[in-house]
Every structure is written in structure tokens, then in C-alpha cells.
């Protein structure tokens, strides 16, 4: 990814403001932990994105993660995805799209009381595997599903 000078200045300024807010006690330490993982979102393949986000890239395939996504998405700009994790102690759910320029799409950090369920809509540049990584009890679990994208097609 190209980081041009302007956005670099902006991001460093944002970090500065963040630091001030922390020292002023406006933000709790938990919020600081949740600072946006820039390197993970800039990674160009699934493995390095997972490694950058979680510190390791090894995941265990789990049948307890249910993925709901269309087999064929007619419009790649809006692909609805629903993830249900039945793994006890699910801490976060991440979505990655392997053929996108930057695969990491979103990480949902689930707090106290939250259930292993998220639903959103994503953009897909072309037919791709959707990879979901669930962090539970310090371990990484994953599930995969292929979504075919037909842009401007007749809808298969």
C-alpha cells in the first residue's frame, strides 16, 4: 500500500491527539488497546494479515463457525455476510476476503455479554474465498466459504 506523506502526517497527528487524550485520562486503557491495527489492514495476503492482527497465522478449522454468505453475489459492492460463532469464549471475529487488494475487512471485538454473532455488508473485488477467523480462549479458529462475484453479469 502507498502511504503518501499527507495521510502519514494525518495519522501521526491522530496518534498524537490520542496520546494526549490518554494522558488526560479521557480514554480507558481498554480503548487504547483497540487502536486501529494499520499494518494488519495494509497486508496484502491473508496469512500476513492474520499474523499482523493476532501475532500468529496458524488457525484451526472449526465447524462451530457458521458463515452465511451468498453462493453467488451479483453485486460485489454489497455482499451481505453473517457470522455465528458457537465457540465458547469467542473474543473477536475477523473477516478476510482473500482476493481483495487488502484482505482484512473487519475485526469485531466482542465485549462482556456479547454473543458470537455479527452481520455486515462487504465489498468484494472478484470471486474470492471469504475467510473468517475467530479468536477464542487465546486460540485462533477459522472457517472458509467461496463467494462467486458476477459484476454486471446476468446473475448466473
Amino acid at each position: 500500500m502507498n502511504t503518501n506523506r499527507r495521510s502519514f502526517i494525518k495519522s501521526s497527528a491522530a496518534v498524537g491527539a490520542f496520546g494526549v487524550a490518554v494522558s488526560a485520562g479521557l480514554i480507558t486503557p481498554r480503548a487504547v488497546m483497540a487502536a486501529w491495527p494499520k499494518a494488519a489492514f495494509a497486508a496484502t495476503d491473508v496469512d500476513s494479515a492474520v499474523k499482523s492482527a493476532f501475532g500468529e497465522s496458524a488457525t484451526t478449522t472449526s465447524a462451530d463457525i457458521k458463515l452465511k454468505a451468498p453462493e453467488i453475489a451479483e453485486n460485489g459492492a454489497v455482499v451481505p455476510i453473517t457470522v455465528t460463532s458457537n465457540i465458547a469464549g469467542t473474543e473477536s471475529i475477523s473477516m478476510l476476503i482473500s482476493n481483495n487488494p487488502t484482505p482484512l475487512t473487519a475485526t469485531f471485538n466482542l465485549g462482556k455479554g456479547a454473543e458470537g454473532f455479527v452481520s455486515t455488508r462487504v465489498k468484494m473485488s472478484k470471486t474470492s474465498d471469504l475467510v473468517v477467523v475467530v479468536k477464542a480462549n487465546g486460540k485462533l479458529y477459522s472457517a472458509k466459504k467461496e463467494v462467486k462475484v458476477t459484476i454486471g453479469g446476468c446473475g448466473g
Partner: protein
Amino acid sequence: MAKSIKVRAKVKGGTTVVKALISHAMETGLRKNKKTGKKFPAHFIQEVTCSHNGNDVMTADWGTAISKNPYLSFKFSGAKSGDTLKMSWVDNKGESDSVEAKIK
């Protein structure tokens, strides 16, 4: 700024289902302006936070691949009808918005 977040939360059998729509361009930085050939600068939501009684039930880190005008839904337990739910977002330009909604 006009309110950009629409949020609905409803308790059913002890579980609160939260559904939200945020109006935002979610520009990836890869799309080209056909007239000038220049790329539209990236402009996307990076963080979404949702809290209930001061407890962050969900914080999301988003990349550029979330669709325009994002939709988001999740579930949590421990809330009751009439409680207040707070949701906010921050984008890569430092813009932000927040909204409070009553849980039904």
C-alpha cells in the same frame, strides 16, 4: 453534521439484537475519477464502538472493504428494555459521530 447513525436495539428472551445503519461514503482510495483519472482519496470508518452502561459490548476495526453506507448487526445479553445504548464511529479523516438509542 446530521445524524449519520440509525440504530435499533430490541430485547428478546434476554438477548439484545442491535441493528445499525451508518451513512458514510466508505471510499477505498482505489476508485478512479473517470474525468480526471485521479483516484478518489480513501475515506472510511476505522472504528465503531457500541457501549451499554459504560461497558463496551462491541468494538469493531474496519478496513476499506466494508460496503458504502455500512450495515452492522450484533447480539449481546445483559440489557433490559429502556436501557440506553451508545454507538459511535471514527473515520480515517478524524471525523466522528455518535448516537444514543433506547433499547426496546
